[in-house]
C-alpha cells in the first residue's frame, strides 16, 4: 500500500498516522501536522527543496487535503513550521517536519475572500480608465461581488476553463466558494529547473530552466536568442514567441540571479537580476490567475534606453499605449505589447522602448483569433492591465 499523502498547499507531503488537534474557547482549532520526506519517494534534491518550501509556509493561507483523514480537509493558516534534516550525502536524506495550522474553516462554512486593493486605474499617459477584473480558481462557485460584476469572459487554458469576472466595484472584495482541492485549480505555478513546483518565496533558485505559467501564458528564460520565451495557450496548444530585453540597444542576455518575490495561487512574481559592470538591472515578471498577459517591470540603476521587443521581427501596428501585430500569425494569434507610460513604439520589429529611463513597465500577451470574444480584445486586455489590483486571500466564515 503506497504511503498516504497530504496536499499541503501546493506540496504533496507524506501523511502521518497521527495528527494532533487542539481547540480553544474561542472556537479556534489548531492542527499539528508531522511528516517525513525522504528518498526514494523524492529525490535528494526534491527533499531539499521541499524542506525550503515547508519552512516558508508560516503566514500562508493554504488549502489542505488529506488522502486518508479527509475529514480534516479545509482551509488553514500556517502558524509555524519546523523541521530536522538528516543528510547522508545522497544516500540517505531525510527531512522530518512539523507544522502548526490554524483552521480557517471548511468548504462547508468558509468563503475565500479576495481582497483587491490598489487604485482602479494605474497612472498612465493614455487617459485609459482601468477595469477591475478578477479570476478565481477554475473550480469555484457562488462568486459574490456585491452585484457589481458586469460580465465575465471564459478562457480555456492548459488546466481548464478559467473565468475572468469583469467590472468589479473598486471597493469590493469578492468572495467565492471552492473546495480545498479545487482551490488549486487554475493557479499560477512556478516550476524550477528540476520541474518541481515551488510554493515558497525563500528558495534558492537557478536563473535558468524555470517555468512560470498560469495555464494561459507561460514564461521561460532563454539561454540565447532573446531573454524570455513567452507562450500563449490558444487553440489547445502553446504558441511561443521569443522576446528580447535590451538596455541601450544591447540585449541583457541571460540574467544572473532569480528569486521569487511573491508566490501565491493567484499571482507569482519572479525577479531576475542582471549584474552589470557598474550597477544592476531588475526584471520583475508577474503572472496572475486567469489573465492572458504577463506583466513586466524593468528597472535599471542607471538611466538608459530600455526596450522589450520580439527577438524575430514581426510587423505590428502602434496604437494608443500598445503595439499589436497587424495580421494574424501562423497560430491565428496577434501578439500584444504595451505600457501604461509613454514609450516609443517599434512597429517594425514588434516592441516598445523608453529612452533615458530607469524603469519601463510593460504587458505582453496575445489577442487570440481574428474575432476575440468580448474581454479578450486588445483594448480589453489593456484596460485589464491598467486596472489590475493586488490580491490578498483569506478565508472568511460564510
Amino acid at each position: 500500500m503506497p504511503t498516504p499523502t497530504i496536499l499541503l498547499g501546493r506540496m504533496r507531503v507524506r501523511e502521518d498516522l497521527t495528527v494532533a488537534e487542539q481547540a480553544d474557547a474561542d472556537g479556534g482549532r489548531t492542527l499539528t501536522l508531522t511528516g517525513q520526506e525522504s528518498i526514494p519517494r523524492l529525490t535528494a534534491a526534491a527533499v531539499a527543496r521541499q524542506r525550503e518550501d515547508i519552512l516558508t509556509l508560516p503566514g500562508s493561507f493554504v488549502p489542505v487535503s488529506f488522502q486518508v483523514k479527509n475529514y480534516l480537509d479545509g482551509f488553514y493558516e500556517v502558524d509555524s513550521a519546523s523541521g530536522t534534516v538528516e543528510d547522508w550525502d545522497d544516500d540517505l536524506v531525510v527531512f522530518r517536519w512539523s507544522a502548526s495550522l490554524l483552521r480557517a474553516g471548511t468548504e462547508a462554512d468558509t468563503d475565500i475572500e479576495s481582497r483587491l486593493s490598489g487604485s482602479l486605474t494605474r497612472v498612465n499617459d493614455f487617459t485609459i480608465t482601468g477595469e477591475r477584473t478578477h479570476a478565481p480558481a477554475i473550480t469555484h462557485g457562488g462568486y459574490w461581488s456585491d452585484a457589481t460584476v458586469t460580465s465575465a469572459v471564459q478562457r480555456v487554458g492548459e488546466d481548464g476553463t478559467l473565468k475572468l469576472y469583469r467590472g468589479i466595484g473598486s471597493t469590493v472584495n469578492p468572495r467565492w466558494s471552492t473546495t480545498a482541492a479545487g482551490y488549486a485549480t487554475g493557479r499560477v505555478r512556478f516550476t524550477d529547473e528540476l520541474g518541481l513546483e515551488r510554493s515558497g518565496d525563500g528558495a534558492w533558485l537557478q536563473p535558468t530552466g524555470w517555468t512560470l505559467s498560469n495555464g494561459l501564458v507561460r514564461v521561460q528564460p532563454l539561454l540565447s536568442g532573446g531573454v524570455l520565451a513567452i507562450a500563449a495557450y490558444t487553440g489547445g496548444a502553446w504558441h511561443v514567441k521569443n522576446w528580447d530585453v535590451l538596455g541601450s540597444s544591447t540585449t541583457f542576455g541571460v540574467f544572473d540571479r532569480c528569486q521569487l518575490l511573491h508566490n501565491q495561487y493567484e499571482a507569482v512574481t519572479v525577479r531576475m537580476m542582471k549584474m552589470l559592470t557598474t550597477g544592476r538591472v531588475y526584471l520583475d515578471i508577474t503572472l496572475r490567475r486567469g489573465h492572458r498577459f504577463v506583466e513586466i517591470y524593468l528597472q535599471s540603476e542607471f538611466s538608459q534606453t530600455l526596450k522589450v521587443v520580439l527577438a524575430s521581427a514581426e510587423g505590428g501596428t502602434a496604437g494608443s499605449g500598445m503595439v499589436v501585430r497587424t495580421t494574424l500569425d501562423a497560430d491565428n494569434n496577434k501578439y500584444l505589447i504595451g505600457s501604461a507610460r509613454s514609450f516609443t513604439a517599434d512597429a517594425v520589429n514588434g516592441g516598445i522602448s523608453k529612452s533615458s529611463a530607469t524603469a519601463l513597465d510593460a504587458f505582453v500577451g496575445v489577442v487570440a483569433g481574428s474575432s476575440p470574444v468580448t474581454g479578450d480584445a486588445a483594448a480589453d486586455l489593456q484596460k485589464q492591465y491598467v486596472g489590475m489590483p493586488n490580491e490578498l486571500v483569506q478565508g472568511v466564515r460564510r
Partner: protein
Amino acid sequence: MAVTETLRALGSWGVTFKKGMPESTWKELEYFGHIAVHVGRRPSSLDDSLLRSARYVGPIDTISDHSGVRSIGGVGMAMWLGDADGKGDVFSDPLVLNSDFATAVTAALPPSGAVTAGTITNTGDNFTGTFQFQNSREIIDYICQTVGEAGWRVNGDATLDAGPESALWRTTPRCLVVHKSVGRAIAGFDDMWLQALAGNAETDRDVKDYTTGVLLLGQGINGQFVAAEAETPEIEIPFKDLHGNPVRRTRIVQESETSTDNAPARAQLQLNRFKSTRDALSLDTSNYDVKGTVQVGDYLWAYDPIMGLMDNANEQQFRGQRINPFKLRLTETTWPITRRMSVFYRNMIGEWFDLSRYVVPESGETTLVVGGYNRSLSEGGSGSFPVSPPPDTSVPDKVDWVEPFQLSVYQSPATGVARSEAILKWIEPTNVGGSSILDGSHYEIRYRRATIPDYPVTMDMINNLGLTNDQLTLTGATYAHMIFLGETEWQTAIAPFDTTVFRLQELTPSMPYEAQIRAVDLANPSNRGEWSDLALFTTTRDNIPPATPAPPFIASNPLFVQMTHMLGVSSGGDFNLDRDLHHLELHGGVEPLFTPTDDTLLGKALANYGSMIGQIPVVQTFSQANTGYVYYKVIAVDEAGNKSLPSQAVVQQVGLIDDQYISNLTASKITAGTMDASVIVGGRIATMQDFDFPGVELNAAGISGWTTTGFRALHWDSTTGKLHVNGDGGIEIKDGALLVRNAAGNVIIELGECFDGRHGLQVYKDDGTRVLRAGELASSGGDGIEVLNDGGQLVRISALAFGMQAQTLTGIAATNLNTYNGNTPTCTVEIGNTGRAMVSFSCWILPGVDGGGFIRAASASFQASGPGGASIAAADAQALSADGGNQGIGRSYLCTGLTPGTWTFSMAYKAQGTGWSNSQFYNRHIAVQPF
C-alpha cells in the same frame, strides 16, 4: 533607557552605567553637560566636531544613583530653545515681528545665545506677529506652522536650522513602512529605489481628534478677542450620524499669540491637522540604526490596504506589485544605545570624556512612529496665557430720555453764524433682565431733522419766511395742516458710558429735531441695546442781534443821499460785522439824537458775509429831498431779523449836484464849448443844418459826403456795404471788385472779380471795349495776358517764358577734332509752354592748318539739354563756319518744340579735319531768349 527623538518636541534619552565606573569619571558628570552617542567605536579625535557627526547629542538634566545603579538622562537639544514646561529664555518684552521668514526666526532665537543661527532658509513668506511671555521654541514653532510646510531643528552643536521642509528633511520618500499583513513579499526587503523596513508594523487609525471645524480664539490688542473659523465643506465630510447628517465636530483652539492677521490662517492650519483620520504606523525593527535610512522629519511611504491606509493619488511599483501608499512623516523614533555605539560626554568647559566602556549596552528594537502626532500637542491652544471666550452675553436695555431738553443758541466760533444746541439727558440703563451693566462701553446717539415739526407752522413764521400761499401749497401744506419737512440722514454722536448728559451742538436754529440713544457694551462683538424712543425738540430761534455798526460816510445833494459803509463795528475796524449780517438800514433825522423808526428809514442796502469776505464797501443811493442839515444813522440786521443798536449819527448838508450824481440827462440844447463824450448816440449827425445838402452826414443809411453844389460825391451804403465815389467818373468798390468808371459811367478798369467772372485786371476803352485782360484769361483758368487791338487782333501770353540769359567768354577754345566738342559759354533759361527760344551766338574763329600748311575750315555751333533727357545736338545746320581764314561771325537760331522746363544752352566747336593744328575760337558769346 533608550533615545527618543520626536518631531517638534524635546524627546528624551537615558544612559545607565555599569558598576565599577571610576568615581572621578562619575564626578565629572554635571547638569547641562552634553552626551554624544556615536555609531561605531571611538573616532580618531575627540573634540567638538563630534557635536555634528554624532548620531545624537543631548544635554543632561538628570543624574541619579539608585542603590548603586548610576544613570543619567536628559532631553534633546531643542531644550535650549525652551523646555516642555515653557521654561527657557522667555521674551518678557513684546517681540514684534514683521519680516521674511528667516529674519523672523533669527529674531526669535534666545537672546542669551544658547542657540545660534545655523542654516535658515527663507520660505518666501512674510510673517507678522507679536509674542510676549513665550520662549524661543514656542515662537519659532508657531512661525513655522503659520507660514506652512516649514520646520526647524536644533543641531548637536546648538545651531538652529529652519526653512521649508524640503530644505531640512527628505520629502521624496525612499523608505516604505508596511503592515505585516501585507505579506513578506514587501516587508523587510529593498527594491531598487525604496527600502522597506523590516519588523512588526502596527497600524493605528482613529477619529478621536477628527474635526470638521475650528473656532480659533486669539488674543488681539487692547484685550480684544480675535476669533476665526475654518470649516470643512459638508460635501467633504465622509461621516454621518444616525440620522444621516454629516458629522459635526468643531474644535475650539485658544492661541493667545495669534493676531487678527494670522487668525484665519491659523484656524485653517488647525483644521488641516485634524480634518482627516489619524493615520499612523508604528514599526518595531531590529535595525538599531535606521538614521542613515530615515530620520525624524523625513517623509516615507506607509501602506496597509487592509486598514485602508492607502492613497490612490500615490502609485509606487515595489517588488513586482503596484501599491498606493500613504505619504506620511516620521514623527518619532526610539532606539537603543547598543554595544555597537560609543557614548561621550562634554562638560561645560568643552572637555570630552569617553564613557563607552562604562555604559550598560541596551538591546531591543528601534521603534518608528509614522504619521502619528503627539496628542499632547493637539489639544489645541498655545501661547503664554489662556484665552477665554467672551463671557458677556448680556445686552443693555433701552435707554429712557429725560425731557424736555435744555435748548439755547450761540454764535458758532467756526462760522460765526448763529447755531443752536440741545443738552440731552437720559437715565443710565440696566441690562435686559435688570442686571447692572458692568461692561458698558459708550452710548450711541443719533439725531436728524424731524420730518414732523413739534408744533404747526404759524402765519407769523410764514411771513418771516416770505413764502406765498402758493409756495406753501407746493410743499404739501394746507392752511389747516402742518408743513412736513423732508427726511434727512441720521447723524451719530458718541457719549462715554459714565455720563448721562450730552451737549448736541451745531444745530440749525428754529428747526425741529428728533434723537435716539442706545447703550453699547464691551463684548466682542459688542452687544448693543435697543434704540430708545424718539425725542422731539425744536431748536431755539436766533435771537442774538448784530453788533452796533460804525457810522456811515454820507454824500448828498438836493435829490439824493449816497451812503458808503465799510461794514465795520462801532468799536473800530472794517468788515468785521457779524457773519450772519443780512442788510443795513439807513435812517435820517433832523436832530442828532433821533430814534430810528420806520418813519426815519431812508432805505436798506444788501450787506452780507460775502461783502465782508470780498471787502466790498456798501455803496447805496437813496432819495432825499431835504436840503437842510440831516443826521444819518445805520442799523445792522442779521438773517434772523435781529437788529443792532443804531450807529452814531453823522450830519450832511445838501450842495450842488456833482457830476457823479448825474446818471441820465435830457437837454434841448447843449452849449458847452467842448464835448469829450466817448459815445454819442443820435439819429443823424451832420456838419450842416440843410437836410438837402448836409455836408458830411452820418445817419442810419450810412456815411455821405456832398459837394458844395449839393452833389453827393461820396456815399457808403450801410445797407449794401458799398462805397460809391460819384461825379465825373468814379470809383466803385463792390463785391470783390474795384471798378473805375469814366464820366459816361462806363467801366474803364475792373480789378478783382470782374464782371465776366474772371479774376484779375481788365481794361476798357471809353466806349467800353476791352483792350486788356491780365490774370484769368478764361473762367476755367488759363492764366496769362491778352491784348486786343482795334483790329480785333489778339496777342495772348498764356504761358510765360522767363528770363533772357547770356554769357561771354573772351578766352580761347581750341580743337583739332572734326566733331563738335566743348561746352562753353553756357546759359540756363526757363522755357515756357510755347516751347520756343531764340538762340544767338557768335565768336572769332581762327581755323587750323592741315599737314600741307593749308588753312582749313572751322565751325562753332550750340547744343542744349532740357528736362526729361530732352536735348539739342550741336550740328552744322545751326553752326557758324569760317573757311580759309579768320573770321568774327555770329547768328541767331530759333528753337521750337522745346519741352517746357529748365534748359541749358552752350556752344560747341569743331575743325575740318582731325589731327591738324588746332582751330581756335575767341570772344565767344551766347544769348538765349525764351518767348
